[in-house]
């Protein structure tokens, strides 16, 4: 069985949802408290949504200094699968594990709504079970979700096929409709939408399964 660790920072709030989603897919999942400085025996790590450290200063700005982050950086360097959802994505960019930054939404309001995503690349640990250009219905829930980067970074992203998901209709002013990106190797992925909220048609959509099932597959070493 695949073992998944869900990191809790004080102020995280989607940790139970991430855990529930993973166990419903058959994973063996447990929580990792942010002050832990080693992570061992995990096949994948999830940084869930929420407001780590209250999002004070900037989303992710304080969380990136938590002891667990150095351990995650090592885990990622060794090829471990790391997924940041929403606030987790913000933490990964602040920590420099993913390029770019997340800015306030264009409309300057929080947005909780369904969105349609388009799979832009299937070479990441999150999208490997999806097909390119596949449309997925997955909700967003954020205030600072507009992906931003400078031109040089953007060119790199395109060249290395690091844009993994785009919005069909841009809700927040994200550059090039970007909803999620990966690192060059494809083993670290962040996205603003919440796949764990799209696990069942009772709650509106089951498309999140396609992404999270892919993430659960034993880590492949990306080329």
């Amino acid at each position, binding site marked *: 069985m695949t073992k998944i660790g869900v990191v809790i920072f004080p102020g995280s709030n989607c940790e139970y949802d991430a855990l529930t989603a993973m166990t419903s897919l058959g994973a063996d999942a447990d929580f990792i408290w942010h002050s832990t400085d080693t992570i061992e025996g995990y096949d994948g790590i999830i940084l869930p949504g929420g*407001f780590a*450290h*209250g999002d004070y200063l900037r989303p992710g700005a304080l969380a990136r200094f938590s002891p667990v982050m150095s351990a995650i950086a090592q885990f990622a360097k060794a090829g471990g699968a790391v997924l940041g959802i929403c606030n987790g994505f913000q933490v990964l960019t602040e920590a420099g594990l993913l390029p770019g930054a997340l800015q306030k939404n264009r409309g300057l309001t*929080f947005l909780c709504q369904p969105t349609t995503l388009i799979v832009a690349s299937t070479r990441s640990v999150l999208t490997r079970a999806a097909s390119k250009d596949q449309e997925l219905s997955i909700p967003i829930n954020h205030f600072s979700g507009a992906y931003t980067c400078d031109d040089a970074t953007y060119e790199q992203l395109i060249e290395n096929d690091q844009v993994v998901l785009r919005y069909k209709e841009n809700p927040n002013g994200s550059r090039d409709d970007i909803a999620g990106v990966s690192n060059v190797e494809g083993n670290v992925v962040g996205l603003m939408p919440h796949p764990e*909220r799209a696990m069942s048609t*009772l709650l509106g959509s089951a498309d999140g399964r396609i992404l999270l099932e892919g993430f659960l597959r034993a880590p492949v070493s990306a080329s």
Partner: protein
Amino acid sequence: MNSAPEPLHRALGLTDSELDDIRTVLRRDPNPLELALYGVMWSEHCSYKSSRIHLKRLPTTAAHVLVGPGENAGVIDAGDGIAVAIRIESHNHPSAIEPYQGAATGVGGILRDVFTMGARPLAVMDPLFFGELDDARQRWLVEGVVSGISGYGNSVGVPTIGGELTFDKCYASNPLVNVLCAGALPTERLVLGVASGVGNLAVLLGSSTGRDGIGGVSVLASAGFAGEDGAQSLDDAKRPSVQVGDPYEEKRLIEACLELLDRGLVVGIQDLGGAGLVCATSETAARGGVGMDVDVNAVPLREEGMQPYEIMTSESQERMLAIITPENWPAVATLCAKWEVRASIVGHVVEPQLDAHGRSVGMLRVRDGFDGEILAEVPAASLADEAPLYDRPRARPASLDAVLDDDPTYDEPQGVASDDLLALLMDPAWVYRQYDSQLFLNTVVGPGRDAALLRLAGPGLPASERGIAISTDSNPRWCALDPRVGIALTIAESVANLACVGASAKAVVNCLNFGNPEHPEVMWQLSETVDGMSEACLALGLPVIGGNVSLYNESGGSDIDPTPVVGLLGVVQSLVAPPPGWAWREGDTMVLVGVRTARGASPFPLGGTRWATNRGRRGGRIAEFDGPSLRATFDFVAGEVAAVCAGAPSDVTAVHDVGGGGLATAIAEMAASNGVGASVIELTSHAELFSEFPGRFVMATNDVESFTTRAAAAGVDVVELGVIGGSQLTIGSMIELPVERIASRRSSALEDALASLD
């Protein structure tokens, strides 16, 4: 400033006769600190002194009620070993001066009421009332309040799943911000805010204490009660009593408190709300029949030079008081440290004393060090429960008969119905899109429909297939015309909302927002409202398990319309499939279910409708409340929808209740929800299109014969309204509109109004 100095007790809001009462209790003159404690605890806000004698008339019991009014939140047994706690409160006055923080701290306060009971907060709702949006200040208020609820609720991690949004000029100077919270707990973990066990410790958890919200008692500073440093300047007295919310602190506080309760480390627990530490310590001591010594020096402070009266009455946010045994202190301290929650021992539970009549009386003693000087010593119960009760004069407004006779139902001519309909459409999505409505993976029906529907699941709860439904409702237009029937119909509408998602109503909470209780008309409205609520609850078999009263919503001598808000909690036995919802399908048959005509003066009264208000008509009569026929209709509809939720085969494909804006609005909303039109039979008049009396549902079925048979068996009326399909909505010869136009008008109405420039 130059006039003779006001006596201190009056400056603290106490009347001369209240001062006499205090002297009788104490058998001596109170010192200034003691006066300050009585001043806040005997305020209208804390003591309900004007409303309490009326609230006693509400029905509060039922077999499934575990905790009724009087505790921090009401609690029902929802089955499967799960209890649901629910509570509603107002944060009106703070929101009027600092809308963001006023609303944010309102959310924080209501959450504490719920997790105090041991329940994990799972849902927030926010009934909001503002003046008309053509005024820039109202737009500032709306944007501030909504972002405050969003900013706090989303961050603290509790989904906001619904509410109300009303614009009326009567709220221009008195916006109303009510917040409801529901939470769930394993039934056996229920805890109450009681201090017991002499020798136990009172531990203050959470934020440090500053001079927040000291408003009323700050007169003590200028009254020469500033102690050594008489330097308390006028500046301090004028200090804004605005509290700032910290959702991050609250989130950690919730987790720490729930873990303390899970591990059985506390004897009792109580939130610090209005009146802060004095309220929490005196209430817990009074409930336990014990005394409490509080050391003001042990309270961690955020500001320098704070005086005992400030420490005792501060309304600093994000604090809780836990009563624990001394043996558990090390474990409590360790657990709190993990969550980065500050914990300090600020009180000791002590033996009650015997008074002159040999009765045992728990005293609240405020001390300067646990062994130090006693700064104040008063019976805890006299603060918490023994405020004077007032039966204030009541009078039916003299002008009411003329208002009732000015009935828009018979207005002629009535204008183009299609335009009237478009003007009634407004989707509050701009509001609820800003709220996380999905956290915890429970939200089956979120904001924007009739009632919110959640799976009854959450961290630490036993597994269950059940669902809970919640709806908040109000209708100040009806209540202005007839508070007694108005609130009864409001409750009916709320039960109808629950029926739309398959839930049967189990309990009511209410928030009574009224004007100045010293106006006899306002007290009449309040008293009538309590009677109407009682009648409706008895007729529909519902207990009232909690509430809140907000008075003095007046400005410039004019009171708001009576605005009782109700929150209804319902249960769905089996929730494995979503209810049908609004979206109907081509070819299905549209039916009107329920009483087609209201009893009363006119078959379709227009008094108090949104249609009439839109044209400046505020008079007229409203429908009567017919308990038995409403109950039969609600049971039938809830049963039909519950079958769908349970996964049973059903011919019902859509459902929506007739609410604000009447039948035409309900039909238009359904058409707009998925862009499919309909062709409806001739309706006879504007009155039939726009009358709002509740207890009616628009439903769609793909087997009208079978549906009608079931309804007849239940004794419920059904009228075939027409056929669903096409891209137009046609209602007889009165309305003919492209569905697209309906949908775009409905979705843009609110944003357009907010964007309007003066």
